[in-house]
Structures are given as C-alpha cells and as structure tokens.
C-alpha cells in the first residue's frame, strides 16, 4: 500500500510583507483583511509564473549560444 507523506507548505513569497501588501490593496477597495489562504495562493501563483519565465529564458539563452557556435 502507498504511504502518504506530507511536508510543510512554505510560501515562496515573504508572508508578512505579502499579507501587508494584500491588505493594503483590499483596503483600497473597501474590503476587509485578506485571509491567509488567499496569500498562500497568490504566493504559489507567483512562483508558477516565475518558473514558466525562467524555463523559457533558459531555452532562449541556449538557442542564442547555438547561434554563436555556428
């Protein structure tokens, strides 16, 4: 049988500053403080966005080197 293991979900972004910033934006719209899980989701989404960028940049940089080689 498979074994389930869990590890602590550490946020990619600095949580206190992120929550501070999210609360400031929410306040601008007249909304209450933002729940922690929203902060966590925003953090994961930002990580995902940057990962996609870095992956593309890595391919592009390699391609540029190929041109130099020829």
């Amino acid at each position, binding site marked *: 049988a498979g074994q389930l293991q869990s590890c602590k979900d550490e946020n*990619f*972004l*600095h949580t*206190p*500053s*992120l929550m*501070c*910033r*999210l609360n*400031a*934006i*929410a306040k*601008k*719209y*007249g*909304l*209450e*403080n*933002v*729940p922690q*899980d*929203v902060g*966590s*989701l*925003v953090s*994961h*989404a*930002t*990580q*995902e*966005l*940057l*990962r996609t*960028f*870095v*992956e593309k*940049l*890595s391919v592009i*940089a390699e391609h540029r080197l190929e041109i130099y080689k020829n």
Partner: protein
Amino acid sequence: SSAPQPVSVLDRRRIEELVKEVDSLEQMDDDVEDMLMQIADDFIDNVVSAACQLAKHRKSNTVEVKDVQMHLERCWNMWIPGFGSEELKP
C-alpha cells in the same frame, strides 16, 4: 500619518533557488533577476486588484480564494491545485 514603508515580498535568494531548480547549471544576470522581481510585483498587484473587484461584484466584503482562482484561470490560464475543495478540477 506616515506612509507605510514598502517591504519586498520576494527575496533574491528565492529566485536563485528557482533558477537552480529549473537548470542547475544556469547562470542569471542581476538585471534579469531585477526584471523577474518587477514582473512578480506587477503580477501580485494585478491578481489581487482583480480578485478584489470580483469580491465586490459578488457583494462580499472579503476577498476569497475563489476570486483569485477565477482571475488566474480566466486571465492567466493558471490553475493552482490544492486550494478550495468545492469542485475538483482535472
């Protein structure tokens, strides 16, 4: 009243870790890291502002996970698993 001091939400070290995860031999210029940090900043503002507008639209006074999810899916074509259990996505 004094304006709140802007604090960085993203550490340069985190970006370096991400780059190493993608390709352990990859080297990235400081300029590129700065650009990525700027992109992250703009992304956060965009996503959270849109989520707040969605929360207001459904006449709620709190922004919820589903507001963020809807914007991420519709505008960024992004689905982050593990948040909210109301419906399961493939």
